[in-house]
């Protein structure tokens, strides 16, 4: 099957629909968890800690963090469900097992999961966007492009998480991914503070992670400082999706058709 075509195949949307049906049953608690927690951090750090200083050249901490938290929300929602959620679906709930006894291809399963994570990131990210807009922290109509970037971010963050969920042998190993990959990525992603005082090598590592680029795009859109550089950051995300989206498919195939 054509790789890009999988995203538009009916079965990919049915996989998406399956997740939507399951999610609807606990949507409110899911929304609460995915919004209340980052929002609490945002308030505590932005207004609590931020009350004591401002960032030279960047203004208040809360203004700096607001777009950063859009990236963080996309990262957390997509990562959590693509890693842990997909692990549950595969190992405990037999969801994919029944899909492959029906004529659903592993490529369509991956595409459906990406679409689902794009949806989650967009939904939760937009709720957060509404909140920061309410605080007067959004300064440009460019911010209307945030949903699109949230969707792409959801996909790019879901890729490694989905891969991990299909290769780990036990659920404990999932937490290695959270601790050794996701958390350091957040620290160097430019979410909480600017990175220009970081050593060069740390910036190189940051440049290699998707969060760094997503946060730059969100910041430009929210502040209205869009330049050609912003387009390149977005391009980085698109290229990463094009190059890596099919890496997990091999592992899915190995687990579901051996």
């Amino acid at each position, binding site marked *: 099957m054509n790789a890009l075509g999988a995203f538009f195949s009916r079965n990919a949307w049915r996989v998406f629909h399956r997740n939507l049906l399951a999610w609807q049953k606990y949507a409110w608690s899911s929304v609460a968890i995915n919004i209340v927690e980052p929002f609490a951090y945002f308030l505590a750090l932005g207004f609590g800690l931020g009350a004591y200083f401002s960032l030279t050249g960047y203004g208040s901490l809360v203004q700096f963090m607001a777009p950063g938290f859009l990236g963080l929300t996309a990262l957390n929602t997509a990562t959590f469900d693509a890693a842990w959620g997909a692990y549950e679906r595969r190992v405990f709930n037999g969801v994919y097992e029944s899909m492959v006894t029906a004529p659903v291809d592993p490529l369509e399963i991956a595409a459906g999961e990406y679409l689902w994570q794009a949806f989650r990131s967009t939904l939760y990210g937009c709720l957060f966007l509404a909140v920061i807009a309410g605080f007067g922290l959004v300064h440009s109509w460019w911010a209307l492009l945030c949903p699109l970037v949230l969707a792409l971010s959801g996909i790019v963050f879901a890729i490694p998480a989905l891969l991990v969920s299909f290769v780990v042998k036990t659920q404990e190993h999932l937490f290695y991914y959270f601790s050794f990959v996701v958390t350091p990525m957040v620290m160097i992603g430019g979410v909480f503070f600017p990175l220009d005082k970081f050593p060069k090598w740390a910036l190189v590592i940051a440049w290699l992670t998707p969060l760094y680029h997503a946060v730059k795009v969100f910041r430009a859109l929210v502040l209205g400082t869009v330049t050609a550089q912003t387009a390149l950051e977005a391009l980085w995300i698109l290229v990463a999706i094009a190059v890596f989206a099919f890496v997990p498919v091999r592992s899915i195939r190995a687990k579901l058709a*051996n």
Partner: protein
Amino acid sequence: MCAQNTVVYARSLTKRYAEVEAVRGIDFAIHAGECYGFLGVNGAGKTSTMKMIYCRVARTAGELLVLGMDPARDASRIKQRLGVVAQENALDPELNVEENLLLYASFFGITGNGARDRARELLDLLAISAKSKALVRELSGGMKRRLVIARALVNRPDILVLDEPTTGLDPQARLLVWETLTRLINSGLTLLLTTHYMEEAARLCGRVAVIDEGRILAEAPPAQLVTQYAAEDVLEIVDADGRLPADTQLDGLVARRERHGDTVYLYNADNRVLLHRMAALGFDPPRHVARRATLEDVFLNMTGRELVE
């Protein structure tokens, strides 16, 4: 090679996992409209055989044709026409009964009102209509199994493949499943099932293949297997002190004698005649069971092991 009405054809079919050779070159042909069963203990290779047929695992060697197509090339087209009841239920616990059916139907391109009608019809057929809005975790084991059967029928399959359809069910639930499967067989559907219950094989299957350690040891209609590999009757005698008369003294009435522990199994044509002859020899068996031979005896004779431990 492949007769007109052959729906599954296997020749030297082999499945090897990393270290284990689970299926060691088996041959069989399943005909349209029959119920064909694989009878064997745990680890015999039943599930591996089914999974190769329903395109879940690739075969290692040999030939396999399902509905005239090769699973290595046409998996998707084969799946479109199969109904699969896998050994594990794999029902979606986050969806309710009806959603499970509708989602599965959608994978076959059955959607909208057509899907809803089909789901309703199947829930009626499997007697679980009352539970259509229940979550899967609220169902009993027997209901779950019936839901899996309903799900397998949603695409009006040409062959229904069932891997141990009643294992783990209580006798009443098992009976319900048997009744449903009997109705499906009578309606002309081709069934392929695995079991380690000889009663299940005897009741449902037109032909049974006895499978052990990855090989088919015999294949025939159940009654024929029994007469061919066991006998009409069995006399089980507990003979701890070895007083039982030798076969030579019993006028050739014993077709076959097996000993497992203290129990001796005398396969013969008619228990009454045999007991009569023993009495004439002055031997009155103290503890014994006189019964008809079954597939269990066939299995015991062929493998030296019991079917259900």
